[in-house]
């Protein structure tokens, strides 16, 4: 849009209606389109967006609820601005995490783009080839793309990338909140940077995001290298209704002591069996997602549901999805869900919430209380996408049978407490704030390889300047980078090698990796650890806490002590750790818990509120838990007497508890972590109190970091030198030192400073 045109429009008399003047700033054809939609006025978010986007060249972050009209808010002014463009090249690049979302947007924008004669092209693995070929011949218009497709293009056809995206007017990033944390977000951050480098003039960025916690952080992330962070437009209201139900099921009195999945004892009527029965009735006939936490749970649940279907003589609609299944099986399920012709429910660990694309579903169910608000939002975002429908969430909780001699922790009934706490935080719009991402090194490895392929052999200095000039990667120091390169160039790793003139090129392993089609994506994995005792595999489970030699792990109803950890093979060697009674509640989970959620658990126990989304069982357990809380004197005390063991309630999240456990274990005390604290096994309460009192605050994180064994977490961490992984672990945990000291003092009953 030429400045002259804008001035002319600004001089028009403002309409006197309260509809605002946004409409007047739009391109005439777009105005026509708006009228044709039958809209009497533009929505609030659209008015604000038009003013912001037309008013300056700067980046803009639009935060509003789903279905509030965000897409139009960005596209109406941007399309108008690019309509008169004569320069060859695509004008607007729109990036979204899901192909299904792109397909939806395509349908909405087709007509609009047609009106202003800008080509609109979907660019992802399933999109039709014809429009792609056309736009490659005559680059222009709007391209809708996923991060993985951008990566593929930069890798395989950098000349095409330059021809298409070398002169962009704007880049729109949708579902921005889903990119603020995790490897996929880091990946996108680097991709945006690389696209920017293809351009002479930096294209402005517009971010579309759900209503989330830290908008300032999001604005800074969006702006990358720009001198100013993006302008924030936060528009309230308009969230689709959410229907929630929390159902608690009790295990039979002498059921499997693990409370874990067991296969096919038809008489036992375990909690899982009852849950399966309810799910069968509630979910049949539509598309749904069921998140079951661990692979073992997924398998058992899916199997149970299949059996029920068979016994009822109806076709099975329930299928498992997790990392151990063959790619073929997983893709079969994904296709069936996407197809939409047959009702399908996917029973999954976590993989289905990340990037893997299956469109929207009717309801989302979860086994076990929510552990992360970011995750919960992500999952909820899958249902209720259609206009007018609500999002439906069913939380299935399992409680061990309330025996008189149950461990005191079980008496607090954490499952239902945690569910209520999570939903409280959901209502208050809390989301875990992003922190230095553990995936930073893994994605750096990935991007270094990708940059070498895209740009050819290049020097270490140029690599560093290109990758680390902006955003999250800028936190890597030159020393870090040099160590990373050395590790990658190590003879056994063979990812990169060096030419005599110093430039870095791919090594044999690097060539293999980059040639594979799996290389485009940087999703988190749902890796589980194998527990091995005397050569026998006990099972697999997800572990989110830091593992040191001596860590106590609860599994299959018993406690085990880690004697050896094989990080790369994901094996923990264990021996039984016999310490009497073991709490039965299910503490397996893929995600760590944030301090805020842990604190909210305490708040729920202290309050009297009885939410009506709880079923009768759940309500009972909530009341019982509160009663136990008072009985155990936990308003004042942090310690629970569990006979030969002591539970220490920190009311902090996973990182804090993890760190405390590392500290205590390194001092020779056997301790196990649970969600809101740690258990000192083999340590009666008086001794436990003494132990805590004897701690002199938190030692330097450096010292603690030495013990941590499970550093290889993300996709390419195995290629990073262990030293470097440890160094960044220490750096990430550095800010925890002060609060840890404070916590220790609090536990020791001293006044907090």
């Amino acid at each position, binding site marked *: 849009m030429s400045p002259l045109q804008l001035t002319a429009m600004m001089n028009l008399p403002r309409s006197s209606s309260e509809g605002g003047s946004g409409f007047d700033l739009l391109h005439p054809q777009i105005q026509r389109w708006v009228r044709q939609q039958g809209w009497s006025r533009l929505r609030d978010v659209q008015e604000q967006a038009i003013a912001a986007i037309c008013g300056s060249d700067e980046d803009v972050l639009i935060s509003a609820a789903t279905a509030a009209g965000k897409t139009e808010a960005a596209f109406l002014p941007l399309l108008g601005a690019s309509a008169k463009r004569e320069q060859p090249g695509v004008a607007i690049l729109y990036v979204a995490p899901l192909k299904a979302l792109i397909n939806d947007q395509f349908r909405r924008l087709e007509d609009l783009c047609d009106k202003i004669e800008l080509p609109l092209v979907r660019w992802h693995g399933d999109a039709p080839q014809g429009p792609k070929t056309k736009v490659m011949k005559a680059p222009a218009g709007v391209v809708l793309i996923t991060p993985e497709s951008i990566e593929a293009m930069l890798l395989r056809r950098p000349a095409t990338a330059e021809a298409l995206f070398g002169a962009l007017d704007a880049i729109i990033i949708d579902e921005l909140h889903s990119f603020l944390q995790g490897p996929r977000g880091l990946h996108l951050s680097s991709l945006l940077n690389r696209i920017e480098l293809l351009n002479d003039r930096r294209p402005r960025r517009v971010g579309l995001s759900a209503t989330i916690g830290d908008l300032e952080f999001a604005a800074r992330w969006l702006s990358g290298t720009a001198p100013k962070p993006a302008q924030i437009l936060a528009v309230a209201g308009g969230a689709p209704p959410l229907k929630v139900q929390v159902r608690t099921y009790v295990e039979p009195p002498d059921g499997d002591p693990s409370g874990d999945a067991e296969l096919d004892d038809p008489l036992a009527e375990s909690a899982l069996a009852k849950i399966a029965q309810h799910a069968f009735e509630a979910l049949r006939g539509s598309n749904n997602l069921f998140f079951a936490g661990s692979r073992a749970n997924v398998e058992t649940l899916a199997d149970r549901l299949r059996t029920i279907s068979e016994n009822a003589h109806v076709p099975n609609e329930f299928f498992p999805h997790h990392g151990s299944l063959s790619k073929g099986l997983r893709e079969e399920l994904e296709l069936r869900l996407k197809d939409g012709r047959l009702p399908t429910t996917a029973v999954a660990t976590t993989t289905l919430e990340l990037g893997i694309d299956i469109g929207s579903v009717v309801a989302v169910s979860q086994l076990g209380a929510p552990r992360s608000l970011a995750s919960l939002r992500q999952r909820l975002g899958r249902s209720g996408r259609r206009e007018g429908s609500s999002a439906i969430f069913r939380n299935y909780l399992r409680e061990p049978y309330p025996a008189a001699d149950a461990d005191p922790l079980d008496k607090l009934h954490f499952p239902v407490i945690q569910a209520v706490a999570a939903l409280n935080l959901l209502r208050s719009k809390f989301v875990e704030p992003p922190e230095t991402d553990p995936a930073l090194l893994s994605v750096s490895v990935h991007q270094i390889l990708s940059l070498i392929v895209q740009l050819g052999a290049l020097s270490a200095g*140029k690599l560093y300047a290109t990758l680390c000039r902006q955003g999250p990667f800028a936190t890597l120091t030159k020393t870090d980078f040099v160590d990373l390169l*050395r590790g990658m160039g190590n003879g056994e790793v063979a990812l990169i090698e060096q030419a005599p003139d110093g430039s870095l*090129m791919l090594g044999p392993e690097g060539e293999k990796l980059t040639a594979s089609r799996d290389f485009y994506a940087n999703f988190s994995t749902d890796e589980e650890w194998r527990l091995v005792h005397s050569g026998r595999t006990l099972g697999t489970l997800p572990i989110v806490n830091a593992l040191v030699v001596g860590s106590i792990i609860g599994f299959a109803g018993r406690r085990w002590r880690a004697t050896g950890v094989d990080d790369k093979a994901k094996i923990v060697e264990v021996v039984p750790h016999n310490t009497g009674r073991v709490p039965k509640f299910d503490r397996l989970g893929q995600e760590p818990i944030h301090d805020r959620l842990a604190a909210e658990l305490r708040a729920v126990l202290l309050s009297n509120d009885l939410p009506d989304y709880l079923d009768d069982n759940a309500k009972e357990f909530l009341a019982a838990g509160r009663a136990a809380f008072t009985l155990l004197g936990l308003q004042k005390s942090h310690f629970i007497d569990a006979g030969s063991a002591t539970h220490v309630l920190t009311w902090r999240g996973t990182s804090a508890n993890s760190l405390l456990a590392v500290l205590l274990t390194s001092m020779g005390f056997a301790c196990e972590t649970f969600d809101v604290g740690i258990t000192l096994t083999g340590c009666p309460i008086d001794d436990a109190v003494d132990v805590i009192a004897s701690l002199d605050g938190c030692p330097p994180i450096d010292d603690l970091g030495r013990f941590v064994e499970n550093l290889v977490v993300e996709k390419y961490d195995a290629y990073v030198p262990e030293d470097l992984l440890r160094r960044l672990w220490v750096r990430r945990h550095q800010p925890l030192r002060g609060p840890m000291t404070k916590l220790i003092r609090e536990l020791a009953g001293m006044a907090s400073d």
Partner: protein
Amino acid sequence: MTERTPIRPRDRDTIVQALAAGVVPRVGLQHIQVGRMLEVGALIKDIDRIADGGSSCRFVIGEYGAGKTFFLSLVRLIALERRCVTIHADLAPDRRIHATGGQARGLYAEAIRNMATRTKPDGGALPSVVERFISDCVKVAHAEKRPVEQVIDERLASIQELVGGHDFAHVLKCYWQGSEDGNEALKASALRWLRAEFPTKTEARQALGVRSIIDDADVYDSLKLLACFTRLAGYTGLLVVFDEMVNIYKLQSSQARNQNFEQILRMVNDMLQGNSEGLGFVFGGTPEFLMDSRRGLYSYEALQSRLAENQFATPGLVDFSGPVVRLQNLSPEEFLILLGNIRAIFALGDPANHLVPDEALDAFMAHCSQRIGEAYFRTPRNTIKAFVQLLAILEQNPALDWRTLIGSVAVDDDPGEDVATAIDGDDELATFEL
């Protein structure tokens, strides 16, 4: 080749500027060239063989900055003197010998653009070569009172037998047709086609009526056609020079590298067996391009056996019977002569105008030896650059004494092409080594 032909003042400036920038001058190579008599001799033999209707293939291997490009320019000059046509191009990340994405066509197009003959040594000689052929045919046609087209067809009969020869001949006839009818556009299209600048067959068909274009897969065949054509046009043969072969070494896909090596193997086989007439290849590359066991020519087994150097040849005992020519480093004595040559250029060949005395040359070499060690004469590029800059200062400031300046001469370490890494000072990244 140290003929003391007088240096023209205009050439002098060209030469000095080029040397000061660290590049090979377009003219006056004979004034600078020092040593390497045996290497030059070997290449002269090759050129003679080509001119005689034979074929040849050489790999000129030398470190970066050792004078490879200079040497290759010299070889081309000699070929031109022997009335060959030369074409040359540097490989680049987007220009290589085998490709499917247009990179081979790009190399070919660049090479044709640089086509040179003795009368047009600077490139762009394609139109004159074509003109020469056409006017020759016209002369014969007039003399024998036959239609020109018939003569052309007759002359091109041998070309038509080669792969792609039919369309090649057709395009040449279009050129003649264009010049007959005064149709400049048609002539231009014909030249475009010959330079492989048509991106699609459709466009070529619309412009010239041919069904094919010179694309990635046709590069080698087109070179053979071209060799045949130059002989028909009255020249003695075609010399093809491809420099910066290290770009193949730097390709990031082993599949791409191997495809390039396979193509090179084909060329080596054909040339060494004498399957082509009047065609010769010279490839310029660095030692790692030749020898790296994973990425270099030697990684391709068939090439390794053909190119393996004489096991009896040690430094001092040189063997030029094999395809690989190692550019021996200049000896300090040769380097001294080189400095003297540069001094002479500045003085336009007149010893009375020498800017510095002989002892200055010795002092300069001693200084370099101190600064960057005894390897200074192995990579002449930067040392020459520094010397030229020294002389330039002295020329513009006659009052200065060379003795004071020599001490402050700085010779850069050769960083290669990628100089644009604006990283500050003592940077572990700048000198990063795995």
